[in-house]
């Protein structure tokens, strides 16, 4: 059995999360060894996941932070 590049792309998510059956995983890994575009595609797919994880939160805009704090103070007076 062989895989096309398109099929490789379709099953990357299962490969990455470890749910691809063993036989398909071996076939995919063989394909990746012999296909530079797919190997690069796989690497950049992985990188997309990695650099998006834990994307830091930006602070609230100053004006909104003041407005929100006032609302909370009004809603919960000491």
């Amino acid at each position: 059995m062989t895989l096309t590049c398109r099929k490789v792309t379709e099953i990357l998510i299962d490969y990455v999360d470890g749910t691809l059956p063993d036989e398909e995983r071996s076939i995919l890994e063989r394909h990746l060894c012999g296909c530079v575009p797919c190997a690069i595609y796989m690497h950049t797919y992985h990188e997309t996941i990695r650099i998006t994880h834990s994307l830091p939160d930006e602070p609230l805009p100053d004006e909104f932070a003041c407005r929100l704090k006032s609302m909370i103070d009004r809603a919960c007076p000491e």
Partner: protein
Amino acid sequence: MAETAIGVLTPERVFREHAPRVYNLAKRMLGNDADAEDVTQDVLLQVVRKLDTFRGEAALPTWLHRVTVNAALASRRKRARRDEGRVNEPLDGFTDDGHHAGHVRPWPRLPDTLALDREQKQQIEKGIAALPEVYRDVFVLADVEQLPNSEIAEMLDLSVPAVKSRLHRARLLMRDALSRHFEERLP
């Protein structure tokens, strides 16, 4: 006030420690500041008014995720914004016999998320904002917030396979969007 293992959960602490998370999640889902501010305000006021009912701080992040997602979805429904054009389909980039239609170019070596520079972070945020809503919600919850697919399925009223399918499509679109930026940086 609710007593927790590490102290008293006050409105001040909720504001300081949780408002940015709520705001960023809403902004990433909704793609604009004004709606994100409305959602943050609604969620924070709900939380501080119910602080007495919280039994433990551990429950708060989970509850905040759920309430924020619901508020963001409601905000979107209220706006009934359906102005999305056709999205580039990532799986269009293949020939009829299944090969890559164009060059697939590598990216430069990228640092950890926390060490990404401002421009790189902006590119990621821009890519997220450009995702169609159905993919964006799942992507933000799975890959940014790192919630399990089963929890996302429950929040969005989807099946787990549907979450996975949308997540994969979102990652392919994000990869394409980031490629347009990072490939240009190669010498």
